[in-house]
């Protein structure tokens, strides 16, 4: 496979770009693998990559019911940040942030991680208290996050309306400079290419219908549309579809799948320099490198796998954006789409072992999955390789829902992802 560089780009340009090799082969399933990962999103492909790169486990297959990167990896609003409240979350997401930085070089694939800063707006006294709590906690955890006055927020993001008479005035904002965005498809493709280079099989359009267990209860493999595939270990990283797959192994999860919608505007010249989030009015916005305003919405109220979502939510989301950025009122919506997010009761992920020997799960990322990608992948690989969680993902167990030891970012701060 060609090493990517300005030089290779030039060489190929001169030869009419005829000599580029496939970035990953379309693999046919082998009879058995050491590890099968269900779900070829950023998390699953990344886990395969780290298994190969850091744990020397290369007899690995990543299996997906559709095309790789076709789930939430390719449907999210690409926001990356780590300024979470609880130590557990902050460590996990900050670990991801450390990996984001340098991921392009590591994968030899430009994922366009852009540290443009994420601005979270405070609209009332409760927001201020909550954000201050985050900022102080982050500071003592070594996580970058600082408080800006409304005026400073406007200087950082000029289109922002900070008029005190607004229905939801901006009282200030929390800013994480290191945070930003990345090119979502490139993350999946980069991991796929890098994993494939290390011998990982990527099997697309091959739905996994069941997880098989032996008499001793240990995992033996998976049933798929292309027949049974053996495996010593199976890791399920299928986002919204995880419940359905895990159920076949007799593992029931505290998980619900909700439709999440997002939309983009027509492309315009650069106008929005950073990512802006307002949890109070439910609006998340950034501008893509193509010039589109990328806007995230909330989830619909009912669980669904339909990937449709309703018009009222879109109306509210756009209204919220125009409340914060009135100048965008005459911009046009180009495209809206729906994803399926898997949500846990405490809005934190489940990443670790399951009651079934040899079966591992990575799910419940809700709307926060993309930003965690390298971290979740790295931790999942570790947990699968060592059959025990890393200190960073140890708290994110399934057991916590029985004991009540939740990592409740939502309840603690009413801060959505």
């Amino acid at each position, binding site marked *: 496979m060609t090493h990517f560089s300005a030089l290779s780009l030039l060489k190929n340009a001169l030869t009419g770009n005829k000599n580029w090799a496939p970035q990953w082969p379309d693999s046919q399933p082998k009879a058995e693998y050491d590890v099968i990962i269900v779900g070829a999103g950023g998390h699953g492909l990344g886990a395969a990559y780290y298994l190969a790169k850091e744990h020397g486990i290369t007899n690995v297959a990543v299996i997906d019911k559709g095309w790789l990167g076709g789930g939430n990896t390719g449907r999210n609003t690409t926001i990356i940040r780590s300024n979470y409240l609880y130590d557990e979350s902050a460590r996990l997401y900050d670990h991801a942030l450390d990996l984001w930085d340098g991921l392009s070089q590591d994968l030899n694939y430009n994922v366009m991680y852009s540290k443009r800063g994420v601005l979270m707006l405070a609209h009332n006294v409760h927001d201020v208290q909550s954000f201050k709590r985050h900022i102080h906690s982050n500071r003592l955890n070594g996580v970058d996050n600082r408080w800006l006055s409304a005026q400073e927020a406007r200087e950082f993001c000029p289109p922002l309306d900070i008029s005190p008479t607004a229905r939801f005035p901006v009282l200030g904002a929390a800013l994480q400079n290191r945070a930003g965005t990345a090119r979502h498809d490139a993350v999946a493709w980069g991991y796929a290419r890098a994993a494939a280079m290390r011998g990982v099989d990527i099997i697309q359009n091959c739905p996994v219908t069941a997880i098989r267990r032996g008499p001793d209860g240990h995992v033996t493999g998976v049933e798929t549309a292309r027949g049974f595939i053996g495996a010593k270990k199976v890791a399920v990283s299928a986002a919204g579809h995880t419940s359905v797959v895990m159920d076949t192994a007799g593992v*029931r999860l505290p998980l619900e*799948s909700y439709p999440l919608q997002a939309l983009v505007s027509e492309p315009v010249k650069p106008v929005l320099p950073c990512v802006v989030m307002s949890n109070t009015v439910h609006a998340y916005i950034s501008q893509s490198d193509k010039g589109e305003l990328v806007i995230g919405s909330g989830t619909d109220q009912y669980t*669904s*796998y339909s990937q449709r979502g309703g*018009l009222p939510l879109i109306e509210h989301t756009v209204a919220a954006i125009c409340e914060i950025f009135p100048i965008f009122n005459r911009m046009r919506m180009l495209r809206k789409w729906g994803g399926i997010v898997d949500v846990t009761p405490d809005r934190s992920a489940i990443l670790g072992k399951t009651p079934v020997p040899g079966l591992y799960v990575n799910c419940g990322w809700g709307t926060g999955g993309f930003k965690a990608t390298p971290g979740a992948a790295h931790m999942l690989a570790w947990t699968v390789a060592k059959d025990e969680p890393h200190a960073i993902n140890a708290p994110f167990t399934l057991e916590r*829902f029985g004991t009540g030891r939740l990592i409740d970012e939502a309840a603690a701060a009413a801060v959505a992802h």
Partner: protein
Amino acid sequence: MLLIHCPYCAQTLPELEFTYAGEAHIARPDASSPVSDEEWRNFLFIRTNVKGPHYERWRHSHGCGRFFNAVRDTVSDRFLITYKAGEKRPELSDLLEKSK
């Protein structure tokens, strides 16, 4: 925006009048007698999250105010049936038969 048939109002009305209230037929264990941590966890958190016909609850919050049950296909978002709270859980096979 869904259309929902309220079994109390006997009318099919816009989703905006209704509030989703989670999975149905999850009875609250009587805590006056011992309940295991696992039972309580299941009651609080464990959900089928089924891809397909889903037994769930809605409240006609901007209408008659009643909680009621429904079976909705979470893939198509179509309702197979709605029925009053307390009525017995309709058999899926019958519903699928009817919807044909």
